[in-house]
C-alpha cells in the first residue's frame, strides 16, 4: 500500500508515475494491458460478438448499450458519477446514455496513488483524471476510425456527438451500436487524443448523481441486502477486552433460539449461525463468554494519556527542520507553548460492517461493501487457497466507508465461515460490534511552541506530535527514520512560511487498534496547528486572517482563497452580537480549503450557526458533487469537533451504541455555504478535505467569542 496522506514524500512518487503516463507510453500500456486481460465472468459472455471493448472500462454493445465500468467504491462521495463523467466526456456520450457496473478485481483497476485496487484518502479523482479520459478517448477514436472506414473518408472528416459519429457537411451518421463491430476489429490508436478543455461539455458542469434514483426507491443494494440461495446468517461475538481472548463460552441458551443452527469458535470470536439475521443476533445475545484477562489496565484512556504526556518530552524523530528553532525562540520578542489533545474516534458507518461469502471447492464469491477489492481478494486467497482467478469480489453500495472499509476483518469472518459451512454466509455486525471493534482514529497529544518578533511576525514554530503509529500495522515499510507520514500529514507540511521550524514525531504505541480515518493526519494536526496559529495571532495582537496572509505572501493560491473566504464572510465587519467567528485553513490531497465558522453559546451549549467553506480543488469535475462532499465533511468534522470521542476503561471501549457515540443530528447541522474557486489546475481530492478544518474553525470562533482557549477535543466549555 502506498502511503496514506503523505502527500509530500510518497504521493509525489505516485504522481510521477502518473505524470509519466500522461506522456502516452505508460497510459497506453495500461490501456493495452487492460484489453489483453482475461475478462471476468461478471461480464457479458457474448462480448466477442462485435462488442467494442477497447479497454477495461468501456463496452459498447451492438444493441446500443454503453457500459462504463467503475473501479472505485461508491460510498456516498458520488464517485460513480465522477468517473462516468470523465469517460463520457471523451467518449462523447451523455450520462443519460450510459449504464455503469462495478469492476471486478483486475490489475487495470489499480489506484496508482494507493498502489492497490482501492478507494480512499481522497485519491480517486486524482488517480482517474488522466486514465479515465484516455480510456474514453481511445474508444471515441476507434469509433470515428470505424465510421471513416465505412464511409471511406479520412478520420478528420468525422466527429462524435452523443453516441453517434457524424460526417462533416453530410447528413450521414452512424450510432456507436452500429459502429461497435467494425471498431472492435481496428487496431488501437497510437496515442489517446484528449479534448481541449474548452470543448468539454461535462467536466466542470453540475451533473445529477447517477445513483440517486435507486437510492430514493430503497432499491440500491448494500452489503446487507445481498441474499443468496441457501444463505445462512452469522453473528460473531468478539472479545470485548483489548488484548484479551475468549477462553470459554456457554451456548445452550443461544441454541434454544428458534432458527439458531450452531455455535462454534472462529478466528475472531464465537460465531452464532442461524437461518435469519434476527435469529443470529438474538442467539448471539444469549452467549455467555469467559474472557481472559477480564480487564486490561494498559488499554485505558487515562493510562494512555499519561503515556502520551510522557512522549511530549524526551527524544523524538525529526520530520522537518528549517533553521534553528531553539535559538529563534530564545531571541523572539514573545513566545508561547501549548498542548493539544485529540481523542480516539470511531468511523460509525451507518451500515454496520458486514460481508457475504460463497465459498465452494471450485470458487469463491464475495459480496461486500468494501473500499479495498484487491486486498479482499488476497484475503480470500489466503484463507481458501483458491487461485485469484476463481475469487470474485462483487462490490455493493457502501453505507458509508470512511476508510473503515479498507479493513479485512469482516471479510475474514464471512470467507472463513462459508468455507467451513459449505454454504453462502452473511456475517452481520451489530452496532456494538462496529463501535467496539473499530480501528480507531488514534489519540494524539501535541506540544507546540511559537515565537514572534516585534513586528508580530512568526519567527519560530515547533510542533511535536505524540501518538501511536497508524502505519505500523498497515504499511510498516512507509515508516522511515521513525516518522509515520500518516501521523505527520498537516504538521510536517505546514503551509505557512516560518523561517525556523522543527516538527517532531514521538511514536507511542498503545494496544488500542487504530487505522485510517478520513482526513488522516490532517485531522489532528490541523486542529493543533490552526488553533495554535490563532494563539500566536492573539499574542501578536494581529487579526488571525491577516497573520495567516502575512505568512502566505508568496503562495497566490492560498492568498486568493483566504481573500475569497474573507470577502464572502464579511470578515472585515464584526459578526452579529453574541456571535463569534473563527477561521481555519488546510492544504491536503492536492486541494485547499478555508473554513469560517460562526458560533454562539447559550448556557454553555455551543451552537454552530454557519460554516462557510472556500475551496480550491483545482478543476472540479462535478461541482455539485464537490459541494455535497464538503457538506458531508462539515457534518463528519463537526461530529468529531463537538461530540465524538472513544474512551477506554480497563481494556473495554466505553461506547456501545449510537447514544454513546452520536453523529451530528439534523437540528445541529449548521447552514453551510461552499464557494468553489474556478481553477484549471489538476483536480485535487475533496472527500476528506473539510473534516480537518472544522474543529479548529469552531474552536477559534469560540475563543473569539468567549476568550476561552479550546485545546482538547471534543470541545467542551468550562
Amino acid at each position: 500500500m502506498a502511503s496514506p496522506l503523505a502527500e509530500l514524500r510518497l504521493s509525489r512518487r505516485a504522481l510521477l508515475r502518473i505524470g509519466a503516463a500522461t506522456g502516452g507510453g505508460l497510459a497506453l500500456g495500461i490501456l493495452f494491458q487492460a484489453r489483453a486481460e482475461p475478462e471476468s465472468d461478471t461480464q457479458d459472455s457474448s462480448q466477442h460478438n462485435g462488442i467494442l471493448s477497447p479497454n477495461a472500462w468501456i463496452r459498447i454493445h451492438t444493441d446500443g448499450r454503453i457500459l462504463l465500468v467503475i473501479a472505485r467504491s461508491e460510498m456516498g462521495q458520488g464517485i460513480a458519477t465522477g468517473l462516468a463523467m470523465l469517460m463520457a466526456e471523451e467518449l462523447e456520450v451523455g450520462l443519460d446514455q450510459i449504464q455503469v457496473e462495478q469492476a471486478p478485481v483486475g490489475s487495470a483497476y489499480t489506484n496508482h496513488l494507493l498502489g492497490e485496487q482501492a478507494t480512499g484518502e481522497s485519491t480517486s479523482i486524482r488517480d482517474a483524471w488522466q486514465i479515465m479520459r484516455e480510456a474514453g478517448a481511445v474508444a471515441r477514436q476507434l469509433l470515428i476510425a470505424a465510421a471513416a472506414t465505412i464511409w471511406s473518408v479520412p478520420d478528420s472528416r468525422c466527429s462524435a456527438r452523443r453516441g453517434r459519429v457524424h460526417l462533416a457537411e453530410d447528413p450521414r451518421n452512424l450510432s456507436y451500436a452500429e459502429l461497435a463491430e467494425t471498431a472492435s476489429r481496428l487496431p488501437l490508436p497510437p496515442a489517446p487524443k484528449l479534448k481541449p478543455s474548452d470543448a468539454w461539455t461535462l467536466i466542470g458542469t453540475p451533473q445529477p448523481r447517477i445513483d440517486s434514483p435507486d437510492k430514493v426507491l430503497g432499491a440500491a443494494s448494500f452489503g446487507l441486502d445481498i441474499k443468496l440461495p441457501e444463505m445462512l446468517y452469522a453473528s460473531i461475538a468478539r472479545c470485548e477486552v483489548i488484548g484479551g481472548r475468549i477462553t470459554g463460552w456457554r451456548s445452550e441458551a443461544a441454541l434454544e433460539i428458534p432458527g439458531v443452527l450452531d455455535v462454534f469458535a472462529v478466528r475472531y470470536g464465537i460465531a452464532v449461525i442461524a437461518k435469519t439475521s434476527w435469529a443470529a443476533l438474538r442467539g448471539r445475545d444469549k452467549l455467555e463468554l469467559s474472557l481472559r484477562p477480564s480487564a486490561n489496565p494498559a488499554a485505558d484512556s487515562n493510562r494512555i494519556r499519561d503515556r502520551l504526556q510522557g512522549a511530549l518530552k524526551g527524544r523524538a524523530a525529526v520530520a522537518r527542520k528549517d533553521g534553528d528553532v531553539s535559538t529563534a525562540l530564545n531571541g523572539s520578542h514573545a513566545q508561547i507553548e501549548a498542548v493539544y489533545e485529540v481523542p480516539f474516534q470511531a468511523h460509525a458507518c451507518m451500515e454496520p460492517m458486514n460481508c457475504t461469502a460463497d465459498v465452494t471447492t471450485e470458487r469463491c464469491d464475495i459480496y461486500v461493501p468494501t473500499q479495498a477489492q484487491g486486498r479482499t481478494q488476497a484475503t480470500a486467497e489466503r484463507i481458501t487457497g483458491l487461485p485469484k482467478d476463481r475469487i470474485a469480489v462483487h462490490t455493493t453500495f457502501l453505507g458509508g466507508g470512511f476508510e473503515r472499509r479498507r479493513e479485512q476483518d469482516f471479510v475474514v469472518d464471512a470467507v472463513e465461515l462459508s468455507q467451513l459451512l459449505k454454504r453462502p454466509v452473511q456475517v452481520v455486525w451489530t452496532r456494538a460490534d462496529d463501535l467496539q471493534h473499530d480501528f480507531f482514529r488514534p489519540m494524539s497529544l501535541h506540544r507546540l511552541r511559537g515565537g514572534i518578533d516585534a513586528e508580530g511576525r512568526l519567527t519560530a514554530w515547533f510542533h511535536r506530535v505524540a501518538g501511536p503509529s497508524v502505519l505500523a500495522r498497515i504499511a510498516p515499510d512507509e515508516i522511515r527514520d521513525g516518522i509515520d507520514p500518516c501521523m505527520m500529514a498537516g504538521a510536517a507540511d505546514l503551509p505557512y512560511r516560518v523561517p525556523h521550524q522543527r516538527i517532531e514525531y514521538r511514536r507511542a504505541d498503545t494496544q488500542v487498534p487504530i487505522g485510517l480515518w478520513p482526513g488522516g493526519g490532517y485531522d489532528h494536526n490541523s486542529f493543533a496547528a490552526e488553533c495554535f496559529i490563532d494563539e500566536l495571532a492573539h499574542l501578536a495582537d494581529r487579526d488571525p486572517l491577516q497573520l495567516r496572509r502575512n505568512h502566505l505572501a508568496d503562495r497566490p493560491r492560498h492568498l486568493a482563497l483566504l481573500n475569497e473566504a474573507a470577502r464572502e464572510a464579511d470578515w472585515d465587519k464584526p459578526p452579529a452580537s453574541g456571535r463569534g467567528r473563527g477561521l481555519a485553513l488546510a492544504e491536503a490531497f492536492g486541494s485547499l480549503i478555508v473554513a469560517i465558522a460562526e458560533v454562539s453559546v447559550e448556557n454553555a451549549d455551543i451552537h454552530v450557526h454557519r460554516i462557510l467553506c472556500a475551496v480550491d480543488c483545482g478543476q472540479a469535475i462535478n461541482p455539485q458533487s464537490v459541494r455535497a462532499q464538503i457538506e458531508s465533511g462539515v457534518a463528519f468534522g463537526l461530529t468529531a469537533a463537538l461530540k465524538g470521542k472513544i474512551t477506554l476503561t480497563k481494556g473495554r471501549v466505553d461506547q456501545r451504541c449510537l447514544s454513546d457515540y452520536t453523529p451530528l443530528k439534523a437540528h445541529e447541522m449548521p447552514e453551510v455555504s461552499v464557494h468553489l474557486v474556478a481553477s484549471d489546475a489538476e483536480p485535487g481530492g475533496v472527500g476528506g478535505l473539510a473534516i480537518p478544518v472544522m474543529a479548529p474553525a469552531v474552536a477559534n470562533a469560540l475563543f473569539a467569542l468567549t476568550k476561552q482557549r479550546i485545546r482538547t477535543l471534543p470541545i467542551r466549555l468550562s
Partner: protein
Amino acid sequence: MISVTLNGEPLELDLDPDTPLLWVLRDHLGLTGTKYGCGEGQCGACIVQLDGEPVNACQTPLSAAANHSVKTIEGLSPDGRHPLQLAWIVEEVAQCGYCQSGQLMTADALLAKYPRPTDAQIDAAMSEVLCRCGSYNRIRRAIHRTANPESQNG
C-alpha cells in the same frame, strides 16, 4: 397467523409475533429498502410508517402491527415519482444513501401532519434519523421543495 396490511396489500404472516418488523421485512419478505443501522431504536434507518406514524421497525414487534397498516419505502410510490422522491433527486440528498429510506418515510409522515412544515417542525421530526453523511440541509430543502412546489426556483 398475523394479519398486516403492507404497502396496501393484505398479508397473513405465520411468524413469531415477537419478531421485530424490521426483520420480518428484511429476512422474511425480502423488502430490503428498510435498513438495519443499530437495532436499538437510535438511528432511524429502519423507520417505516405504522398507520401513518413513523416508527422504528427494529423496535416494533410484528404483534404491534397486527391488524394495522405498514408502509415501507417500497410502498411510498409505485414508480419512484412520489413528490418527496423527486425532490430528493433534484436536491441530490442521498450520499451513501443508507439512511435515506428512514429519512423519506419520516419526511412523508411529517408532511401528512404538517403540509407546510416550519424549520422547527422539520428539526423536531427529522432529528430522529441520523445521517453520517450529513445530508441534513439537503433534506430540509427537499422537504420545503415538496411542501411549496409553487415557490421553487432551485
